[in-house]
């Protein structure tokens, strides 16, 4: 079908259906929706990448905002941990959004494709279970980056702390910048940074990553709003779709085959990433 000839209402309906599905899959696979949304919509929908990245940012923002109260009440997100890291990330994300909107489209498309393929390969190869930190470093102690949560699987209260705080701050500066450039929440990078690098328990890393995305993306979202790069007919159906899908995903979390879903997600990311890469290189328009 020639996309320009299709009536306008097809696209918001298709976006709603896609993001509803992404909401379910994202929760079950433990990723943010943006990492799938941007390459899929950027490659297979008729919208310019500038608008897709803006929608990707607010989609990840809305999805993580909706989940954050549940995570905080379950003590799986930790504000003390999130506050300094999100501050570093949101300053960088602001800069990333400005840079991303200034770069030529084909450069962003090639870089996006390369990043998505790289992330898919990392998700395939990397074990995100880090070794728990036994002692805080000096900055972590000053900021009191530690806590306690109840792990129903272990049937015990787990005391935890983090280390390598300066490296963690540097990592979230880099992650925030990339998130701003590409319109991603970057949960795929937050979790290993918190778990493998800083030594937080995996459940706290996953929960705190969501809270962090909601804060980091709030600053970059304003850049896209002020530059006129948010088209409501793309963004709003996507926000509503992912929020409703994520509710169903949360309910399916206990029974869904997470391993299979994760493999499907990696395959879709490889396909969409390769498409973005080839499109950016002018090899598959």
């Amino acid at each position, binding site marked *: 079908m020639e996309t320009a000839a299709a009536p*306008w209402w097809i696209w918001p309906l298709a976006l709603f259906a896609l993001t509803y599905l992404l909401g379910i899959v994202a929760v079950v696979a433990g990723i943010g929706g943006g990492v799938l949304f941007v390459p899929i919509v950027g490659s297979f929908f008729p919208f*310019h990448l500038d608008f897709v990245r803006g929608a990707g940012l607010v989609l990840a923002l809305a999805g993580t905002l909706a989940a954050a109260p549940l995570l905080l009440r379950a003590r799986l997100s*930790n504000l003390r941990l999130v*506050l300094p890291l999100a501050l570093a990330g949101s300053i960088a994300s602001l800069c990333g959004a400005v840079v991303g909107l200034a770069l030529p489209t084909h450069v962003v498309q090639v870089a996006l494709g390369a990043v998505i393929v790289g992330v898919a390969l990392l998700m395939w190869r990397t074990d995100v279970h880090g070794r728990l930190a036994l002692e805080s470093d000096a900055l972590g102690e000053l900021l009191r980056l530690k806590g306690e949560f109840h792990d129903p699987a272990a049937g015990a209260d787990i005391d935890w702390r983090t280390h390598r705080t300066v490296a963690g701050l540097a990592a979230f500066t880099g992650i925030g910048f990339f998130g701003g450039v590409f319109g991603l929440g970057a949960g795929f990078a937050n979790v290993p940074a918190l778990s493998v690098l800083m030594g937080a328990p995996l459940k706290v890393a996953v929960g705190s990553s969501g809270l962090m995305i*909601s804060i980091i993306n709030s*600053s970059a979202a304003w850049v896209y*709003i*002020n530059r006129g790069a948010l*088209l409501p*007919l793309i963004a709003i159906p996507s926000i509503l779709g992912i929020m409703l899908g994520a509710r169903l995903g949360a309910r399916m979390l206990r029974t869904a085959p997470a391993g299979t879903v994760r493999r499907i997600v990696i395959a879709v990311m490889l396909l969409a990433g390769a498409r973005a890469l080839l499109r950016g290189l002018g090899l598959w328009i």
Partner: protein
Amino acid sequence: MDLDQRAEALYADWLDRLVRIAFSVSLVALLLYVSGALESYVPLSALPELWRLPLAQYLERSASPTGWGWIALVRHGDYLNLVAIALFALIVLVSYLRLIPALPRLQAAIAAAQVLVLLAAMSGLF
């Protein structure tokens, strides 16, 4: 309940409340927009030709404003929906303002710096 738990519960309550409001506003605004109940600034039928353009060309062809210029256009369906998006982007800022008095001094200072970053982002300077 210790100080951390109280602050987290307070933050969670505010996020919860504001997300429900933003979701409801988004749903109503979208229905008003796509049903044609509110006239849109950029006609819906023109969008398939415009949304494939790079941002600079889109802004020129559609005569759309940048910065805070959109506020003057909220009577139009498309810009009413931008209000809904802006509400999502405001939730963290409002919740942080409520959270700061409940935090220990160092964390309160970090949260205040975050508020300044969000205000700078909102300002339209970037």
